[in-house]
Each structure stands twice: as C-alpha cells, then as structure tokens.
C-alpha cells in the first residue's frame, strides 16, 4: 500500500512540529525518516498512523483519503520505541491480542489464532519463548515480539518508531540486518524513524531527511549521501569539513587559498560555504603546491585500518578569528609514507568540494 502525505501541518502550542510536509512513500519500499531529535519525524509517523491528528493536510493511504479515519480502521502496524508490550500478557497472548479484539464476525477461530501466532513467532524466531512474559525477555527479543504483534493483524503498512533506539549497539546492528531481511521476505510498505544516519543509509531503500518540521531531501541512500541537497543534509549524513569563502570563477577563495569546486550555479563573487568529506581531502607536505589551503597538523589518531588526522587553519587565515577545525581520513600507510608529525605545516587539497551559498552572511 502506498502512502502519501499532503501539506501536513501540525503545531504543539507555539512549536511547529510539521510545516506543510508533503511526501510520497511508494508501495513495498522500506523508507527511513531521518533527522535530529525534534525534527518532526516521529510526529509525522504518528500522524500517518492516526495516533496524532494533523492541524491541516491529508494522509492518503492506497489512493484514498484516510485523514478522518480512526486509527483502528487504518490497518497499520505500529512498533514503539519502548516496545509497549502488554506486561501482563505472555508473548503468545501479546501477539494474539490484535486477533482477539476483533468483532466476533471477523475474529478467527481459536485454532486459527494459534496457528497464526505460532507462525509469526517462528518468523521472529521466538516460538520457544511463547509462554514467557515480556519482562523475562531481552530488549532485542521484546522488540521482535512487538514486531510480530504488529504483523499479526496483517497490516497494509508497518510503521516503526525508533525501533532500535533503546537497544545496545551490538543488538542494534543485528536487528537492523534482520529487519532488512524480513522486509525483503514480506515486501510490506514500511516506514521507520531514526536519528542514526548510519542505520538509515544501511537499512532503507529510500531516505527522507527532515529538519525543523520540513523535508530537506528525499532519495536513495547513495543519492542523499553523494549529493546532499542542503548544508544541513551534508552535515547530518556524516563528518564534514567546511570552508567559508567567496566564489571566484571555478574556485572557492578562502583567504589567500584557492580551492576548486564542482561548480553549481552560484553567483560570481558570492559568499559561499564549501563542504567536503574527510576522505575527500588530501594532505600535501610540499607547501609550494599552488592549490589547497595551508594548515597546521594538530593530532594524528591511528587505530583500525585508517588514520584520522586533525588539523587547524592558520591563525586568522579566513578572517573569522577562531581557527577552523578540519578532519581528514586516510589509510595508515599514507600517514607513514608522508612522514607526518604533529605541529607540522601542510596543505589540504580537496579532491571534491561542494559549495552552497552562505546563508548566514
């Protein structure tokens, strides 16, 4: 089932949680709603579920306007961050709940309920624990029960609110892979909310990036990572280095230095900010190189396969007072080959730099 939201607006008192949000969620895809806390992603999910009513705008489920239908009628499966399992019921009864509360006409027979619940518990690999109570399970197991419970009512869409938020890193990683596999098996239209960009990029088919109640960008993980549509997206999707300067032809002029940029349509001479990822910067020890910006090497951190080098701009290099901080990631051998030492002066040459007009100027 496809989901469309059109011009959804929602305020809590003075706070604008959703500001005219319109997005399409195609049928059968696994979409991540990604953004920092307070960006409105959970509110959007709850509006789609019907747990929250928008001030204005429409929610269209499967081509039909569902804005005024009750949660009960929307046929959505919802998974809560803190599981919200019924603590007085066993795992089995938790999963069976949605079937047992149906009106008698549509309620399956007891044998049918048993069969379906056990099949679902098999699917989430928890059938042996059917008679346990939620408190006797680990966090990861509880979330899987919550998922089975949501699936029991055969929802048209599955909505997951920070499903792995309350779990520790190890379990989280495992459940992520597991959710992806499950989605590949069931092909149910799914939306999950997360503030973890790695989680969104790894698991989802599509990512919807939200910021301050607005949608910043929609795209595949590769699209949003490689071609961020705004400075916010650039900064949110991973570590980034910024260069404040002025557009000068095909170069960004930062103080005395010139850096080639990938040339989007920005006015000649306009104030601009260049963005580049830590692995897109090269360290050159020969200070006579014409391109690049001269910096002081502050710290070299070597653990794992790659080394992280932290550098600072020369005092007052770009006329902004405080030194700008840069971060470069490169293979360890490269650090040894260059013979880098802390305190050394080097040049930073970006292999790729993306510029946006400077909003703050």
């Amino acid at each position, binding site marked *: 089932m496809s989901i469309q939201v059109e011009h959804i607006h929602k305020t809590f008192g003075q706070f604008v949680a959703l500001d005219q949000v319109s997005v399409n969620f195609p049928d059968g895809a696994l979409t991540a709603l990604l953004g920092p806390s307070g960006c409105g992603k959970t509110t959007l999910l709850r509006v789609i579920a019907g747990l929250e009513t928008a001030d204005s705008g429409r929610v269209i489920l499967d081509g039909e306007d569902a804005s005024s239908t009750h*949660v009960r009628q929307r046929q959505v499966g919802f998974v809560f961050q803190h599981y919200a399992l019924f603590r007085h019921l066993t795992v089995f009864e938790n999963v069976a709940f949605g079937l047992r509360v149906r009106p008698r006409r549509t309620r399956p027979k007891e044998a049918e309920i048993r069969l379906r619940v056990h099949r679902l518990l098999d699917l989430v690999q928890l059938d042996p624990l059917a008679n346990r109570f939620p408190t006797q399970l680990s966090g990861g197991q509880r979330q899987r029960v919550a998922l089975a419970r949501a699936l029991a009512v055969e929802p048209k869409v599955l909505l997951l609110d920070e499903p792995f938020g309350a779990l520790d890193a190890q379990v989280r990683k495992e459940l992520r892979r597991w959710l992806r596999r499950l989605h590949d098996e069931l092909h149910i239209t799914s939306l999950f909310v997360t503030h973890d960009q790695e989680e969104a990029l790894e698991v989802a088919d599509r990512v919807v990036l939200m910021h301050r109640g607005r949608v910043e960008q929609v795209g595949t993980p590769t699209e949003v990572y490689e071609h961020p549509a705004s400075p916010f997206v650039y900064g949110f999707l991973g570590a980034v280095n910024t260069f404040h300067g002025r557009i000068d032809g095909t170069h960004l002029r930062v103080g005395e230095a010139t850096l080639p940029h990938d040339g989007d349509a920005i006015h000649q001479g306009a104030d601009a900010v260049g963005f580049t990822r830590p692995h897109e910067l090269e360290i050159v020890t020969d200070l006579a190189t014409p391109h690049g910006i001269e910096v002081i090497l502050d710290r070299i951190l070597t653990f794992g396969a790659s080394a992280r080098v932290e550098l600072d701009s020369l005092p007052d290099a770009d006329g902004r007072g405080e030194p700008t901080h840069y971060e470069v990631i490169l293979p360890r051998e490269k650090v040894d080959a260059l013979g880098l030492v802390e305190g050394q002066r080097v040049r930073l040459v970006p292999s790729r730099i993306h510029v946006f007009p400077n909003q703050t100027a």
Partner: protein
Amino acid sequence: MAAVAGVLHARVDARRYETNAATREAPWVRRLILGAALSFFVLFLLMPLLAVFAEALRKGWFTYVTALTDPDALSAIYLTLLVAAIAVPLNLVFGVVAAWTIAKFEFRGKRFLTTLIDLPFSVSPVIAGLIFVLLFGAQGWFGDWLFEHDIKIIFAVPGLVLATVFVTFPFVARELIPLMEAQGREEEEAAVVLGANGWQIFWRVTLPNIKWGLLYGVILCNARAMGEFGAVSVVSGHIRGQTNTLPLHVEILYNEYNFAAAFAVASLLALLAMVTLGLKSVIEWKANQGVTATD
C-alpha cells in the same frame, strides 16, 4: 501503588545497607534504635489493641456476644456495611475515572483538579459533615426544597453515605494517579492500533495493569468508610437503631458507662483493621511479585 512498588526496593536496599560493613552501625546503636522503635510500637499500638480485646472480654464471652447481638448493635453493623457498600463502589468508579483523566489526558486545570482531590484529606471530617448539614439540613441551602419533596438527607442514611463518600474520596484516585502516570499511554496506544475499542482497552490493558493498586486503594477506602466517625457523627443525629454506625454506637455505649459493650463493638472495628492490614500485606506481596517480574 507507587508506595507498593517502593517497598521492594527499600527492602533490597536495607539488606545491602545492613550487611555492608562500611555502612553498618555499632551494635549498641542498633540496639538503641531498635529498642526505641519497639517500645513505641508496644506502648502506642500493641497495648491499646490488646486493651480493646481484654476489656471486651473482661465480663466473659456471654456479655461479649450479648453486646454484639443487641438489636441496636446489629442495626449499627448493618448500617455500617450498607454505607460502605454504597460509598466504596462509588469511590472506586470515581477514583478510576479521575485517575484516568488526570494520568492519560492533558487539559487546562489539571493541577487544580489534582489538588481538589486531596481536599477531603486536608479538611477536618467534622467540617466535612457540617458542609452537608449546611447544604441539605432543614436550614440549609436546599433544605426547603428537600422538605417540600419529602426527601430526608441529614439525620438519615443518604447523609451518612454522602459524608462517607466525601471523606473517602481520595483513597482510590490517590493510589492510581502515580501508578497510571508511571505507566504512560503507550500500551493503550498499542492496543488501539491493533484495533481494540475503548471498552476492550480498559478491560484488557488498563485494568490488568492497575488491578493491585486499585485493590489496595479500595481496601483502604473501605477501612476508612467503616471506621469514619467525625463527618458521620455530624450528619447522623445519633438515632439508635436507625442512623447509628458502629463507631457512633461505640461512643454512645461508652458515654453510658457500658464499657464492656462499648469495647465489644470496638473489637469488631479492631478486627476490621487487622483484616485490612492482612489484606494490605498480601496485596503488597502480590504486587511486588509483579514488580520483580517487570524489572
């Protein structure tokens, strides 16, 4: 049941505190503190309780049974049970509704309502009784109207029920509000997404989650309803065999220097107190099992 939930943690903490050499007090300090607490307990709680039964049985079982089977005493027992049987269910329903409203919804004046619920605790029971006399008494606000329609509230059973409901108003709500606030709305939301209607949510999700707290509140409410003296005394009129509840009956017998009978009836109330305490302990124990399971 916040109180109930706290008990277990307190017990675990106390044990750890006591077995830890670093925090253990010197033996004489422990003995002194324990001794002080115990003598206080014996002097002010145990002795009066024993005295009630000793006095009640001083003139033998025959007098005891006679005092309890006296028609006035039987009528007082019946009236007390009747008042409790009306007041407790009323406050059970009210308490659940009030706690539900306060814990699960946001609205203007919520804090005011929470404070208002505590009013009967902070007002002297005698004042509570007087309020009803002023409202429904012969010279009260609704006195004329009630007289015209031949409805008797003051010096009659309805007055006793009203006064009792007022005084025992907060017990159930007070017990449930913190419990329901702590549990939040998520389970109810999960239930509604799964297709449950309001009625099903209440019976299948909300009630099972609050049942021990609710029972605890009901038992305290009942104990107070049966034992209430002040408010009931004002509205009762002390008509023997008609508007006398057990506590009032005790007072009348005592004022007539009929000590054996007074203590015999009082022993019933004392028994009620002990049963209440017993039930309370069982419920705390049961609820703690729930807590251990939910931790």
